C-alpha cells in the first residue's frame, strides 16, 4: 500500500452523505487505485478516474494531486463522486479511431470510445464508455451517468414496478 493522504472536502462529503456513500469508502477506492494502478488518468487535466463495482451500484471517483506538478505525489483531493445503478454487463464494441484524453495507467495507452451493455431490472441497453483497448476496462463518464443512465434507471423502475 502506498503512503498517501486523501482529502475530501466538506462539499464533496455532504454530496456523498446524500447518496449514502461514506468518505472512507471513497478514500479506500483511491488507495486501491494508486496501489494497483486500476485507474484512468486525463493527460490534459491531470485528473484520475477510478471505479468500484458493488452489488447494486458502480461508484466512480475523480481525484487529482493536491499539489499539481509536485513529485512524488503525497496527497490527493477527491473532486467528484458519481454513480449508477445499472450493472456493467459486457463491452459491445469500441471505436479505435476515437481516441480520448484519458489514458489507462495499467496499460499505458489512451482510451477509446466504447459502447457497453448495462443491465437493470432485467432490461439491457447500451451506453457510451471510455474504454482501454488493451484490458477493455471501461468507465461510464459523469455526464452519461448523470443523464441518460439515470433517466433509464428511473424509467425502468417506474415502468417495471
Amino acid at each position, binding site marked *: 500500500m502506498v503512503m498517501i493522504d486523501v482529502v475530501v472536502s466538506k462539499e464533496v462529503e455532504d454530496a456523498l452523505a446524500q447518496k449514502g456513500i461514506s468518505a472512507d469508502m471513497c478514500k479506500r477506492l483511491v488507495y486501491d487505485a494508486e496501489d494497483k494502478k486500476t485507474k484512468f488518468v486525463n493527460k490534459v487535466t491531470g485528473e484520475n478516474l477510478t471505479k468500484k463495482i458493488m452489488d447494486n451500484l458502480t461508484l466512480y471517483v475523480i481525484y487529482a494531486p493536491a499539489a499539481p506538478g509536485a513529485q512524488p505525489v503525497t496527497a490527493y483531493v477527491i473532486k467528484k463522486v458519481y454513480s449508477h445503478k445499472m450493472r456493467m454487463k459486457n463491452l459491445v464494441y469500441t471505436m479505435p479511431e476515437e481516441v480520448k484524453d484519458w489514458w489507462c495507467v495499467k496499460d499505458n495507452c489512451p482510451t477509446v470510445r466504447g459502447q457497453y451493455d448495462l443491465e437493470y431490472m432485467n432490461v439491457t441497453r*447500451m451506453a*457510451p464508455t471510455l474504454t482501454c483497448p488493451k484490458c477493455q476496462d471501461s468507465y461510464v463518464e459523469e455526464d452519461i451517468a448523470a443523464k441518460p443512465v439515470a433517466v433509464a434507471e428511473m424509467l425502468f423502475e417506474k415502468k*417495471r414496478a
Partner: protein
Amino acid sequence: MSYQPTVPLDKLPSHFISHDTESHKKWHTGSVTRFASPFVDVFKDRIDFDPIVMAHATTLLGFTNRDFYESPEIAVHCVAYFNELFDLLPVAHFFYSNVFLEKYGVKLQTTNTLPWIAVGDRVVKSPEDADKLPKFEKEDLKPEKCKTTELHWRAFDYEKANIPDMMLPMHNVFCLFSMAAELVGPEKFIIWTRKEPKACHKVLDSLAYTSASGASLTADKYGFDMMVIGSVLANSTVLPPKYVKEFSFDHQRDFVRRALAGGGGPQLWYHLCGDHSRDYTMWKDVITTPFTVMHIGYYGDDVFPSDLLKKEFGNRMSMLAVIDGKRMIEPNFAWIYEQSKKQLLGGRDAPRGCILGTTCETPLITNPGCTLAAVKACKDYGTYGTW
C-alpha cells in the same frame, strides 16, 4: 406572401377537445404504456405505428401547410389530435429541416405545399467562405436572436400550457450534410467532398457545433430533449460509403457526444433517409444511449427490410421498421396493409423493441385510409415476439 393563422392563436385551444376528458385520459394512459414498451421491455398490446406526421396533420384537420411551419402552436395541437384520432403515439411533436440556417444568413420561406426551404443566393461561395463560418454558442441561439429556437420553444411552451400530457421537447439536428449542402449548393458541395474536403469539414464542424449548442440550450430550459439525427442527402445513392462515413457519420458522432455532454438527449433517434444499402453497416457503431432508435428508409429502391434491420441493429438498439412513405398517398389500403404485415413479421421479435413507421415524413397528401391500414396491421400482426 403574407401569412395569417387559420385560427387566431389565442382562440386555438378552444377549437380542440380538452385533455381533461375521461375518454382522452383512458386512451392516453394505454398509449403511454405502449409507447414505452420498446424502451423498457414491458410489452403492451401491440407495436406502435409512427407515420412521422408533420404538415399532413394540419391539412387533414382543416388547417394549412403554412399553419404547421409558421404557427407551431397549431402544429403540435393538430399532431396531438391526429395521434389520438388514429391511436398512434401519446406525444405531440414539432420539428422541420434546415434548422439554424437563418443564423448563417440563409433566407428561408414556406409555401402552400413546402416546408422551410432555402431561397436566394448561397451563403458559402468559396472554400475561403467556409473558413469564416461562425460556430454559434447557446447565447447566440436564444429565441430572441434565433428563429429556429423561437419556433420550437413556442411549440413546447404551448404544449406545456395546453396539452402537457403530450409534451415532447425535441432537438432536430436534421442532416448536417444536407444543411451544409444548403449553405454551399447541393451539387457544388458534393463535388467539394472530392475537391475541397477541408472546406466541407469546416462547414460540417460549424453546423455540428451550433446544433450541439442548440440541443444544450433546449435541454437547459425543458430538462431534456429527444434528439433526431439524420443522414439524408448523405446516402448510398449520392456518396460512396467511405464518404458517408467521413462527411456524415463522423460529424454526427461529434455532435452526439458534444450534445450529450451539454445535457441534450437522452433519447436519440437516428433517421437515415434515402438509400443506405451500401453504408448501413457503419451505423451499427453510432453512439447510443439506453433510449436509441435506428430508422433506415431504403435499401436501393425498396424499403429497408425489417429482418435485416433486426439482424444488424436489434441487439444494440430499438428499431423502426418502415413502410414506403411515398405509397401513403395512394388509395391502395391493401398494399399498405400487406407491406406493414411483412415488415412487422420481420421485426416484431427484435430483442430491444420495434416500432412501425414510414420511410420518412408521411406526405402532406397522405391518404388517411393508408394510416388506418398500417394501424390495422399493427393490431393484427404487431405482437411483440413471435408468439
